[in-house]
């Protein structure tokens, strides 16, 4: 009588493990498929086509960066870009665009450096 009762109890964990393993395997397949779908949706979102081989070649930077025009005027520590923004000497934009040296009150102060 005891054996009859105990047998299903012993067998059940093994069965459960097998079932769970099968479920895990199935879930893994589904996760992989979902990842793939998300990747495809991501490309659609950006309007990015499937990359052709030649478009995947990074661009060699052969053209030099924009050079600050050689200003004949004496540096004042401030630079007024042609757009009317004033940058101080600590700024990344200082003397890097077309413009001229200026005074500390000219133009609109750059939001990054405070002019």
């Amino acid at each position, binding site marked *: 009588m005891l054996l009859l009762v105990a047998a299903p109890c012993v067998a059940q964990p093994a069965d459960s493990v097998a079932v769970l393993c099968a479920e895990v395997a199935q879930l893994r397949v589904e996760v992989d498929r979902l990842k793939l779908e*998300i990747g495809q949706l*991501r490309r659609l*979102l*950006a309007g990015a086509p499937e990359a052709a081989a030649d478009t995947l*070649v*990074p*661009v060699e930077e052969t053209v030099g960066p924009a050079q600050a025009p050689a200003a004949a005027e004496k540096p004042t520590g401030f630079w007024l870009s042609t757009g009317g923004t004033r940058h101080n000497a*600590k700024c990344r934009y200082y003397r890097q665009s077309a413009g001229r040296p200026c005074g500390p009150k000219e133009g609109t102060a750059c939001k990054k*450096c405070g002019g």
Partner: protein
Amino acid sequence: MQKMRRLILWLVLCAWCGPACAVSIRVMTWNMHNFPSGVMDLRAPEAEPANHATAAAVIRRERPDVLVMQEIRDSAAVQVLLDSVGIPAYRLLVCSRFCDPPGIPLFQQVAIVSRLPLIRSGWKKWATLGAVDPPRGFAYAMVRNGGEVVLICGVHLKSNMVKDSDRERAAQLNILQRELAVQQLVRFIETDRALAAAGLAAAVVAGDFNTNRDDPQFTSERTLAVLDEAGFAECFAGLSTEQRLTWRGSGAFAAATFDYVFVRGLTYTGRTRVVAGGMGDHDPVVVDVGR
């Protein structure tokens, strides 16, 4: 006489083994957080000497053979750093000059310093594909290690910064930018004729990838998988999350693994270490690699 014989034997062994044996090299990658000012897009003359001294102390302590740096203002900042380090063997092999769309140089460049002999170096901007326009690009240096040619690539992939009101779209675009960048890097390594002609034996890709395998927001991202599939081995395999936190976190964002070294044609000869940087928001990653 006995000593002389041993010396000759040793020299013969070295000559025979030298070209074939790659010497173990130590690689360190470090996002140095707007170095040297510590402030985005600005110079800070008052703070820069302290940051130079802090970084130099870390480099002297770790003594990497190859140092891959991100968020560097320009080559002049690296030269000042190397002067502070004071180890004459170190040379700046390459410092990129990435620009913003108007053509003004960014203050976040990628540089490679090494004491290994340089064969060739350069940097390339990522190509744009449709609406996917990855920022910056990568710097590379081919160096001689023993008798072998090793390629070192430094990257700083798109951050997770989201300014757009459509946050989900912006987050997915960030992922796309990283994925596209790494695809281009792998294609460069596998198809560049100059690399093939030089007889490339091994490649190291190091830098700030701004992604990881832990965070659910990156579950479907393939940036790191692209390198896995290209045969690269990640430096953090087998380490717990706590052992590989390279970004210290900020505000609502928890600390994370963002910085990696990947190698192909080499193996890790010791445990990867995340060491104290003492400045900025990232800590350096140090690995020893060899045959």
